[in-house]
């Protein structure tokens, strides 16, 4: 087991001065931790993983595994194992040969290889397929062989590069759970790359959200979800994503108020000091935090608009509402009876509001709200 430390790690293709694919990434993955690198395509998460694996050189910065500098250590000597998106099984070898290929190279005694291969095959339910070639296996079985090839090596660090992307939805859920159980069982340090936020939220001890080659935020999945560091993280985590609306602050003798989508709310979670020198902000609210106000409800601050479309998903209903500030999505009860063209009011709880400064960075709330609703 091991700790992985990245310090100001950069990756540039084409020498100094060229555009960096990964820039100033500093991250510590603790011993036994399941760290998920999450981000959209091209954000640098796979490149970061490949630098840890030794498959890409590090242009700048420092990588250490268990305190030992690794920048110049070749991939084979880093004591890591990697599971690839394509599985990368050797097509001309049987499952048993695939599993033992790495051990043979390391001069592991034959009896030990056999023991480990059999043990791993049993753990993953592959015993009856040991004599088969990858072409004769299903997608899920191939995925397990790829996993087994990593496990059998008993490495310090497991690296996963979107290993579930090629599986169908049902198998993905099953394998996700299998991986989580495996992590608990092995207690190994694992770094997992994905663009799928559900995988990140359900599997990671911590997640590291990346954007444009930089780390946007690191933290426990729910912490990151509840306290996004910027508008990118706010929109990237959550489905449907957080609603972000342009807003303006007004300072009154009773405290700051926000003017958004034709409505005005008091801001009970932010002190005047927290909002000093800021006029234009972005107002954020998650779709699941809003609820529909009945027509007879007493007047109260809410975002009003016209229903653009209704998407009944069975377990819930999504309402797309055109407001003066832009389109807003609300995730509502499945029995919601709103119809397109109807004018509706969506109430917003005080605790659920987010504010972002003009650069997109979150403005930290420094007060506990007194009420549940903004009024």
């Amino acid at each position, binding site marked *: 087991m091991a700790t992985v430390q990245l310090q100001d790690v950069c990756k540039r293709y084409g020498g100094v001065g060229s555009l960096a694919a990964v820039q100033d990434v500093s991250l510590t993955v603790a011993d036994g931790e399941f760290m998920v690198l999450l981000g959209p395509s091209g954000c640098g998460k796979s490149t970061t993983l490949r630098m840890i694996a030794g*498959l890409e050189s590090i242009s700048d910065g420092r990588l250490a595994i268990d305190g030992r500098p690794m920048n110049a250590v070749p*991939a*084979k000597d880093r004591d890591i194992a990697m599971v690839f998106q*394509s599985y*990368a099984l*050797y097509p*001309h070898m049987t499952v048993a040969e695939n599993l033992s290929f790495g051990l043979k*190279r390391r001069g592991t005694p034959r009896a030990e290889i056999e023991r480990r291969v059999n043990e791993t095959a049993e753990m993953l339910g592959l015993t009856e397929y040991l004599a088969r070639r990858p072409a004769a296996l299903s997608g899920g079985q191939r995925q397990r062989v790829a996993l087994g*090839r990593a496990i059998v090596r008993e490495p310090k660090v497991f690296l996963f590069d979107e290993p579930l992307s090629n599986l169908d939805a049902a198998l993905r859920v099953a394998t996700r759970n299998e991986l989580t159980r495996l992590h608990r069982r092995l207690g190994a340090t694992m770094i997992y790359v994905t663009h799928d936020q559900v995988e990140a939220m359900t599997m990671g001890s911590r997640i590291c959200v990346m954007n444009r080659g930089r780390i946007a935020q690191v933290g426990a999945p729910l912490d990151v979800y509840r306290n996004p560091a910027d508008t990118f993280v706010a929109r990237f985590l959550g489905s449907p994503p957080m609603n972000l609306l342009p807003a303006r602050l007004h300072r009154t003798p009773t405290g700051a108020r926000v003017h958004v989508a034709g409505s005005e709310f008091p801001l009970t979670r932010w002190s005047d000091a927290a909002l000093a020198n800021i006029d234009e902000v972005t107002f954020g609210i998650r779709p699941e935090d809003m609820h529909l106000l009945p027509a007879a409800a007493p007047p109260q601050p809410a975002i009003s608009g016209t229903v653009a479309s209704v998407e009944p998903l069975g377990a819930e209903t999504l309402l797309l509402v055109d407001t003066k500030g832009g389109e807003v999505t609300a995730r509502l009860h499945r029995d919601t009876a709103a119809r397109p063209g109807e004018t509706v009011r969506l109430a917003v709880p005080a605790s659920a509001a987010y504010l972002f400064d003009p650069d997109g960075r979150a403005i930290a709330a420094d007060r506990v709200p007194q009420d549940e609703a903004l009024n």
Partner: protein
Amino acid sequence: MQAQRWGDRLSALLRRGPLLAVLVLYTLYTTLPFLWVGAMSLRTTAEISADHYGLPSPAHWGKFRAAWVDSNFAGYFWNSTVVVVSAVAIVTILGAMAAHALARYKFPGNRLLYFILFSSIIFPPQIVLLSLFQILVNYNLYNTRAGLILVYVSLQLPLTVFILEAFFARIPQDLFEAARIDGYTDFQIFLRIVVPVGMPAIVTTVILNFVHLWNEYLFAVVLVSDEDLRTLPVGIQRFMGDYFQDIGMIATGVMIAVIPVIVVYTFFSEKLIQGMTAGAVK
């Protein structure tokens, strides 16, 4: 019920009829000349002159012994075997390594090198014949098996690299990276991953090169003049005179020459088909 089944069979036959007809015609077109030469190889030239298309009755099996022993075909066969097997082995090893390097490694001039190598395919062999002759004379390689082997290697290398590079480039990069993490060096990866995975393509080039070089005449006749070093295609020429051609013995010689090609093709044909259809199906 029975009539219905016959009706279905008839309509299926009618649908596939034109295709079957074309296949049968093409098979006859390629097989009949071969069978004709096979028949002639067991007949004397006098018999052939009397009846071009007659059957070998009686079959003169002794002609094969005569060609092999009396006309030095054993020597030609040995020369062909040494030259062609050596050339094919060298071409395969060099070609596979070059193709792997061109397909896998990014280095300055990679595509330029590939283009230069490949562009030599477009030149007709006659263009390089004279200069090769001169080079071989200068390096004391004229009239030697080694000289002919070297020329054959240089002739077949571009096509070999071209075929193998295209195949190797399709081997997923992840396989190499997995092997690197498993602890293998670049050369071990070439031997243990690229060669086995690329075997269908390698066998394809082995067959193409073997067949082509086994039948090669132009360079063999120009670059080797010593009777004891002649290869089979040149040896067959012995039966051709200015005024008389021993058609019967030529046919016998051709049959002796063609046997190894058939053996090689039969042995590797399954891999050849795999190599030619690779990529067509996933």
